[in-house]
């Protein structure tokens, strides 16, 4: 199939005659496949640590919604390649995704996924169901499997508000797809083992959105504490984690000021108790 740049003028009508599915990815695949993340050509050798990697993402539900947060560090091997990278992306009015693994592939996936959701919404005049959104993301990860085998591994964490349940839902994935729905909370990335341990102790079923943001900030700090690839809050440069809240009012990314408020509160407490809050023993 020819690229859209060298189609003869008359074939611009392809725009108007394509009456297939409402999937943007499928449309691009048939119309200008070179725009899609590479599916067939694979690199000769795994490139390992040469491209930046993004690490820890955490998410947790609360009554009426879901919160997702990500640290800001990107690493190439033992080098910190960027201190203020963004790994949590708004994908539509009621969902977001965070990425861990190869930063470039993850950012491209988030960009394409956003268009995918909006394209469906505009074509069909309705939004996809939450399960539909989660499945669509799974398909895109499966399409990336060939590159994952070459070391360009990217794994997303997906969170959405589900109006049918009036609550948040979290889906995680492996490199071969998924989706695996998670109750309560989940974390991905190299610091996720530590973040998940922290979340396990601090998660409360009845927490408010405000408390849950604090819980995630604590979990990210615990991840950064024990994982060298996860960045803690950068107090001198004023770089704070990215925190997103989704509820019935839609997606909202907390402002720098809001997040710095939470972070300063946490840091003050950690000055006294470096390991953070203690969960009750009984």
């Amino acid at each position, binding site marked *: 199939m020819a690229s859209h740049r060298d189609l003869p003028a*008359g074939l611009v009508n392809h725009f*108007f005659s394509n009456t297939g599915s409402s999937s*943007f990815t499928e*449309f*691009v695949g048939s119309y200008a496949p070179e725009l899609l993340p590479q599916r067939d050509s694979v690199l000769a050798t795994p490139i390992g640590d040469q491209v930046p990697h993004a690490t820890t993402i955490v998410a947790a539900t609360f009554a009426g919604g879901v919160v997702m947060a990500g640290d800001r560090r990107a690493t190439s091997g033992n080098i910190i390649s960027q201190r203020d990278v963004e790994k949590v992306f708004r994908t539509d*009015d009621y969902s977001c995704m965070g990425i861990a693994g190869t930063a470039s592939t993850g950012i491209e996936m988030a960009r394409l996924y956003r*268009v995918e959701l*909006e394209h469906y919404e*505009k074509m069909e*005049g309705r939004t996809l169901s939450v399960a539909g959104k989660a499945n669509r993301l799974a398909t895109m990860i499966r399409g990336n499997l060939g590159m994952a085998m070459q070391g360009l591994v990217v794994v997303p964490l997906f969170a959405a508000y589900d109006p049918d349940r009036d609550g948040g839902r979290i889906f995680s994935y492996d490199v071969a797809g998924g989706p695996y729905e998670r109750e309560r909370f989940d974390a991905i990335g190299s610091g996720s083992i530590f973040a998940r341990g922290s979340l396990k102790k601090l998660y409360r079923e009845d927490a408010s959105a405000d408390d849950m943001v604090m819980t995630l900030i604590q979990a990210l700090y615990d991840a950064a504490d024990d994982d060298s690839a996860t960045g803690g809050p950068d107090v001198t440069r004023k770089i704070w984690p990215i925190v997103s809240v989704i509820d019935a009012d839609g997606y909202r990314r907390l402002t720098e000021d809001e997040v710095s408020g939470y972070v300063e509160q946490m840091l003050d407490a950690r000055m006294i108790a470096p390991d953070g809050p203690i969960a009750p023993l009984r």
Partner: protein
Amino acid sequence: MPFGYASPEQIMRDKADYARKGIARGRSVVVLQYEDGILFVAPNPSRALHKISEIYDRIGFAAVGRYNEFEELRLGGIRYADINGYTYDRSDVTGRGLANLYASNLGRIFTESIKSLEVEVVVAEVGDTPDGDAIYRLTFDGSVFDEHGFAAMGGQAEAVATRLKEHYREGMPLAEALGVALTALTEPGGERPPVAQLEVAVLDRTREHRKFQRLTGPRLERLLSQGTATPPPAADSAPAEPGETPPPTAPDGDVDDGSSPL
């Protein structure tokens, strides 16, 4: 096939007459600027088959005429916008680019097909300030009109446009703009269309990310009651300055002499 010769002029005239008649059969749609963006109003008994739609972050679409024909234009426009936004950047998708794509397709179909499309389309783009707003009206033959402030099409388009021009002023609040649109859509002394039969949407520059929003339910009813509570502006309130028929932006020619094609 009928025998005999028909001149190209005659064929074009027949096609244009045919299209114009088809478009005039439907109901009018009105698009106008208000203080925070652009308002679309269409009397439309259907809840599902829209005449107004989102194309991209800042771009909205409104159409009159044959549903299947403008629906195809709408879907094509969404594909164009999404693929360009994905290839370059979201800010690189412009209303002007979309209007040109539609114009070339409408023009080609008008000249090459036996039957031209019976549609008229508005592509509107909201800017960061009112000066950045753009309203492009496209006719069945591919002519593009760069409208200022407001546009009306379909049904008794001329009468609607005249009423719109009388009551329109720059920088109206949303409720007032809605009132003006309904006044324009209603024949003097006639009944206003009931709320359930109105399709209303805005491109609101104060919104984040995607500016397009449908107005329905209680919010629409509240706006309508506000809009009718305020008396329509007096005739001496500042009229839209570029009130005259705007010149066509397509090249001059037989088909494109501005005020009335052909």
